[in-house]
């Protein structure tokens, strides 16, 4: 088995796996990214829309620096990166070793189609006779046994679903690329030896096995068999037991001694079964009882064959492993099937609805009923299907189904122009994220109906097949509603084969089968070198998944650092060198010599056009020095042919015409390196689609395909003529980080960065570190915060790489990544100048103030924080209390603080739990709007109810009332079910007011970061870059980012640290080839380009009076080039000259008069 080494193994190539892999790769670590499916993307490959922004934008996950190391196209279609090796249809089978030194065994499932050869032409699909349900479309449409796993992936190789393949072989015959190898042909290599003294048996067996395409030899005796075993490598031996000269068991013993890998199956007559069993103890695999027929023999042989094939496992040495295997969903067709799923045609799960709403789905985005294709006029969502339901062993919440339903309802409203009635039936509307409450309000504004009632079952009208929902409202009214379609918001279930994976990796599972993270550290597992990211620990939305994935990446890079690196990565130290090396051949002084390679696309080229015509057309241009036609460039073989041909060619630019130019980007880089040329001297154009496209009306075009091909080629040639070959200059990085804020978030981030050899300045405004953790005692799960805090503070104190500045603040920050210039005002009012490569904002948050509900009029009315301070530790005695009332959502989830603070519901439960434990007779009432106990914290809600804590829900329109009268506090609230007003006299009233951020305007203005409408840090992208600011190099974590628990705060801190390390880990950074340049001589200082840049990367330097662009921040969008009136701002790689030339070339050959616009833009 081949042994290779990678720094990290990431199991699962969904969003989280991709994020972790990219984070590690950006630092220069090598990653093996595997997924059991034949395609990347996980769940999100099936979803076109994700809340809260209702659009994609996944491409924003791609690295901002060193852009050319990876792919630069739509991420939903796939990706590549120099440091990431992707292995699909691959599973982890074994893991041994310890952190820093694991040996992983990977098993790659054969898909019977060689991805290196498949060109994706689709001819096989057309001839395949076997039709089955398409699992990409959740069974709503059909596909063939040979199919594309994800329709929009690049590159897209077909795979065969073996379970439904009939082995007819039609696809294999028609494949133009010889890519299909049904195991039939591999069977020929599987050598079987049949040993029996009876000729009739030998003959029958040979005949049966021959028919199955196996290679069979025969031996009449043990001695002959041993002889033959020595001559050929046999994989399987079928031997009789009772033979005259040598017993089968003796043969077995001898054979196994010399050929231990030989699989032996004994054949025996009934009387000698005992001998057969004994033989198995001696090493035989199995036995067959004579007489037997092919139906018994063949499946066993096939199984042995497949196992042998499968045993060709790969071994990989890795430093660390990250599990990103995600979750699956509850199947509503469990034995009870209360909702008629699979029986009533118009009942769907939410994923099925997503496919229906997708443009690439079974109905191309038309929302129609599944029984009669009529328009859907009324649609309902039923929440908590398979979640929060002890009947299906799911005493947990699945976290994001509420948001998913909101998103889908909003989409349906939009797609049907508000004509469809949408209703959501729910118990609690869990909108716990920063922007989720606003999203909920938007849904209400859009006219989505909300009914607070759990629907327990569905009935179907016999004639119309409408779905009937019956329920009883709170007031006791019986209501019935019919719908065209009902969507079941199915809950989470553990990922595939979690038990097996957890055994292999040595990690624990929680009682429900999800991976159990360590307390406080959501990416850590029980195995010190194995980490977990994404939804494998519980279903999360995109933003949280990305945060946890980055946190897992941080833990992984920490292990890699401590075991392997111990030194910063220099340009030479990286395994994949920088893309632009100054040692490549300088062609700037050579005349342009373009060599063209045209793919004949399986000889379609010769059929469709006259290659001679194309060649002569090209030769009209003196700069096109040579042409060559090669077949099937997309296959490994074709590419090799081209490479060897090119080595003999003398040219300095190469034009490649084939299909899927994206696919070539990676190969081109390797080729460029080999030929010692700059990669942008190679260009690929797509000509194949001109042959493969279905006949369209325009084919009657007088212009033959030939001239269209020529136009494409000339467009490509123009690009090459104008390509720039300046190397990308390395940007020196200031390898020091600034962390503003010394709470748990800031400290965790500081430690994470310092542990990887980067110096950190930790600035804290107060006298001591600790922030909110100084008064928090424990989490809802019961983990004590004190020890964590003390441990963290002492590690900070002992760390040589962290400079702590308490009672200090940031006076000013100027400059940009990777060199910020900071002025810190210390405790003695001194000003200290430091420079930093990246900044992490962790200034935290505090409890919100309130004056509602009589706060301030009585000392019996307290906020949650005050209660924690007073009753926690050795404060006053709860035994003195008789009644406690807690009111939640005080000032939260309403203007002006229209967001959920997420921690108040768990805190209330925690405090109620504590009170209940110290005083079992206490009357505790919790008055709430929606209980935000999402995920596995739901169990605490159940427990609280069981502990005799009374929960009373209220609507924001009718809040409770509080009256204070001398020493009494009276709380009045309406009991919704009974419809009666309650008056509770209470000894203690606790108000949950929520969290407000601590981000002063001066600081945010100084740093150049933006705040959202509620004062929290505004992320560059809510989903894909959740801890980054749009101004590159500045990250945020903790409460200043969004309200969250201590554990989730640590997740953001680790994520921010990893993002910062992607800049700070290396001594130098690089931008991409496509970036902004400035011609200062043409610049008129109009400054239009500065606000045009979305990344705030441009500025006017007062010293030299020039416009400058920060190479690291610039992403190459070209906005500056368009607004510049003088052509001083250009986009390297897309200069005006090139664009105009390309436009010209698009017309070449069809206009009589060719107009050249030589003037510079």
């Amino acid at each position: 088995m081949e042994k290779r080494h990678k720094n990290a193994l990431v199991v699962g190539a969904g969003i989280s796996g991709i994020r972790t892999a990219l984070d590690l790769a950006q630092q220069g670590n090598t990653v093996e990214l595997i997924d059991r499916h034949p395609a990347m993307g996980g769940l999100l490959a099936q979803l076109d829309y994700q809340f809260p922004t209702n659009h994609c934008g996944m491409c924003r996950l791609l690295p901002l620096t060193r852009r050319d190391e990876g792919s630069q196209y739509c991420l939903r279609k796939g990706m590549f990166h120099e440091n990431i090796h992707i292995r699909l249809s691959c599973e982890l089978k074994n893991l041994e070793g310890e952190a820093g030194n694991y040996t992983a065994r990977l098993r790659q499932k054969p898909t019977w189609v060689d991805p290196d050869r498949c060109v994706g032409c689709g001819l096989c699909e057309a001839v395949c006779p076997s039709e089955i349900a398409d699992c990409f479309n959740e069974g709503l449409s059909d596909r063939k046994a040979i199919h594309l796993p994800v329709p929009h992936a690049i590159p897209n190789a077909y795979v065969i679903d073996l379970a439904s393949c009939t082995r007819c072989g039609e696809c294999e015959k028609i494949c133009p690329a010889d890519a299909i190898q049904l195991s039939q042909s591999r069977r020929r290599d599987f050598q079987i030896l049949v040993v029996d003294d009876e000729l009739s048996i030998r003959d029958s067996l040979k005949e049966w096995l021959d028919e199955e395409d196996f290679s069979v030899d025969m031996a009449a005796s043990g001695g002959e068999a041993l002889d033959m075993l020595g001559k050929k490598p046999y994989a399987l031996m079928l031997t009789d037991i009772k033979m005259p000269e040598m017993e089968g068991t003796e043969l077995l013993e001898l054979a196994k001694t010399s050929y231990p890998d030989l699989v032996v199956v004994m054949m025996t007559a009934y009387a000698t079964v005992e001998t057969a069993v004994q033989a198995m103890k001696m090493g035989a695999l199995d036995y067959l009882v004579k007489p037997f027929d092919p139906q018994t023999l063949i499946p066993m042989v096939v199984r042995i064959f497949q196992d042998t094939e499968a045993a060709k496992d790969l071994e990989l040495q890795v430093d660390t492993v990250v599990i990103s295997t995600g979750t699956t969903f509850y199947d509503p067709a469990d034995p009870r099937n209360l909702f008629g799923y699979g029986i009533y045609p118009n009942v769907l799960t939410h994923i099925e609805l997503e496919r229906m709403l997708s443009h690439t789905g079974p109905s191309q985005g038309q929302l129609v009923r599944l029984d009669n294709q009529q328009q859907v006029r009324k649609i309902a969502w039923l929440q908590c299907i398979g979640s929060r339901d002890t009947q299906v062993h799911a005493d947990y919440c699945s976290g994001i189904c509420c948001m998913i339903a909101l998103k889908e309802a909003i989409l349906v409203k939009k797609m049907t122009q508000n004509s469809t009635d949408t209703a959501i039936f729910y118990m609690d509307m869990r909108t716990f994220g920063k922007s989720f409450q606003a999203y909920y309000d938007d849904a209400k504004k859009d006219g989505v109906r909300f009914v607070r009632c759990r629907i327990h079952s569905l009935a179907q009208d016999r004639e119309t097949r409408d779905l009937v929902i019956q329920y009883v409202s709170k007031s006791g009214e019986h209501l019935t509603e019919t719908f065209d379609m009902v969507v079941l918001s199915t809950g989470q279930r553990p990922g595939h084969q979690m038990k097996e994976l957890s055994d292999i990796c040595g990690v624990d599972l929680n009682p429900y089968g999800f991976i159990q993270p360590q307390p406080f550290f959501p990416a850590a597992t029980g195995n010190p070198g194995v980490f977990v990211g994404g939804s494998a620990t519980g279903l999360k939305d995109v933003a949280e998944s990305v945060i946890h994935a980055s946190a897992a990446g941080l833990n992984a890079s920490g292990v890699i650092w401590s075991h392997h690196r111990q030194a910063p990565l220099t340009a030479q130290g990286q395994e994949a060198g920088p893309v632009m090396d100054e040692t490549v051949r300088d062609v700037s002084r050579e005349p342009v010599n373009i060599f063209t390679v045209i793919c004949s696309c399986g000889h379609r080229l010769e059929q469709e056009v006259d290659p001679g015509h194309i060649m002569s057309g090209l030769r009209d241009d003196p700069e096109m020095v040579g042409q060559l036609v090669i077949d099937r460039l997309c296959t490994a073989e074709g590419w090799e042919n081209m490479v060897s041909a090119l080595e003999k060619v003398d040219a300095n630019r190469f034009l490649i015409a084939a299909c899927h130019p994206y696919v070539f980007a990676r190969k081109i880089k390797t080729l460029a390196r080999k030929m010692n040329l700059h990669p942008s001297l190679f260009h690929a154009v797509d000509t194949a689609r001109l042959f493969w496209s279905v006949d369209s009306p325009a084919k009657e075009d007088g212009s033959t395909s030939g001239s269209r091909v020529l136009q494409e080629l000339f467009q490509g040639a123009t690009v090459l003529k104008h390509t720039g070959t300046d190397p990308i200059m390395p940007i020196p990085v200031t390898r020091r980080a600034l962390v503003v804020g010394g709470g748990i978030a800031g400290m965790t981030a500081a430690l994470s960065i310092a542990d990887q050899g980067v110096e950190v300045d930790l600035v804290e405004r107060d006298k001591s570190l600790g922030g909110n953790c100084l008064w928090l005692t424990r989490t809802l799960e019961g983990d004590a915060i004190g020890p964590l805090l003390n441990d963290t503070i002492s590690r900070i104190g002992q760390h040589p790489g962290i400079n702590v500045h308490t009672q200090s603040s940031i006076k000013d920050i100027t400059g940009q990544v990777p060199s910020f210039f900071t002025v810190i005002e210390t405790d003695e009012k001194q000003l200290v100048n430091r420079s930093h490569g990246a900044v992490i904002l962790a200034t935290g948050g505090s409890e919100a103030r309130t004056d509602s509900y009589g706060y301030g009029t009585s000392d019996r009315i307290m906020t949650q924080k005050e209660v924690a301070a007073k009753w926690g530790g050795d404060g006053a005695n709860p035994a003195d209390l008789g009644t406690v009332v807690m009111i939640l959502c005080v000032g939260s989830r309403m203007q002006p603080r229209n967001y959920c603070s997420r921690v108040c519901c768990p805190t209330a439960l925690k405090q109620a739990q504590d009170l209940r434990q110290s005083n079992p007779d206490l009357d505790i009432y919790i008055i709430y709007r929606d209980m935000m106990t999402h995920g596995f914290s739901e169990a605490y809600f159940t427990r609280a109810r069981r502990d005799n804590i009374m929960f009373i829900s209220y609507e924001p329109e009718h809040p409770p009332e509080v009256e204070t009268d001398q020493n009494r506090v009276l709380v009045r609230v309406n009991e919704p079910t009974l419809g009666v007003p309650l008056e509770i006299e209470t000894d203690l009233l606790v108000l949950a007011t929520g969290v407000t951020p601590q981000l002063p305007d001066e600081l945010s203005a100084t740093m150049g970061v933006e705040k959202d409408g509620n004062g929290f840090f505004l992320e560059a992208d809510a989903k894909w870059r959740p801890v980054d600011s749009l101004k590159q190099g500045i990250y945020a974590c903790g409460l200043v980012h969004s309200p969250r628990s201590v554990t989730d705060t640590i997740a953001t801190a680790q994520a921010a640290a990893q993002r910062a390390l992607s800049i700070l880990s290396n001594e130098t950074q690089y931008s991409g080839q496509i970036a902004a340049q400035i011609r200062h001589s043409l610049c008129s200082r109009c400054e239009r380009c500065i606000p045009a840049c979305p990344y705030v990367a441009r500025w006017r330097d007062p010293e030299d009076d020039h416009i400058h662009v920060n190479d690291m921040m610039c992403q190459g969008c070209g906005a500056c080039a368009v607004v510049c009136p003088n052509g001083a701002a250009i986009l390297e790689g897309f200069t005006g000259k090139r664009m105009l030339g390309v436009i010209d070339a698009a017309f070449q050959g069809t206009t009589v008069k060719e107009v050249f616009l030589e003037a510079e833009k």
Partner: protein
Amino acid sequence: MKPESIQTSFNEVKEMVQACIQCGTCSGSCPNTFAMDHTPRKLWRMVLGDQAQSVLASKTFILCSSCYTCTLRCPRGLPLTEAMARLVQLARKANPLLFKKSHAFYDAFLQSVKNHGRVNEAGFMTHYFFTMKDPLLPLKFTPLGVKLMRKGKVAMPAFNFGLGRGSRPRGKMAAIFEKIRQMEQHP
């Protein structure tokens, strides 16, 4: 029955439904809510709110037909049908006068079972009318009786004690009832 033991039994019922989240599944599933004064959801809320008086004066649990749909579907896994049955027993002890009719019916039914091994409709109805001492009561039952007789659901003349349809030796039933009586006295 002593008020303290009523309270204790009531608290037992309360503990059974303690984890109720007021989701509405039970009310939605119950086929008999149309006739109840309080829906099951409301009833459990009242139980949790310690409103023993109102609960024990409600008709809801009497109308429970023990179909078990609510118990099967309750997301909190609460033993609702059992709780209803407990309330029936509790109400009998706490509010004998209010539920006199239902209890008389119930007793007559069980007496018939004890005597014959299974219900003898005509016999037990006669017993019931006797106990109620209301001359008009039989008339109220007439339409239902006719309907049942048409469908062959009523055993003919009630005067074949111990003979006819499925009778069992009295001794065994009596032993079962005696055992239950013992269990009820010493829970």
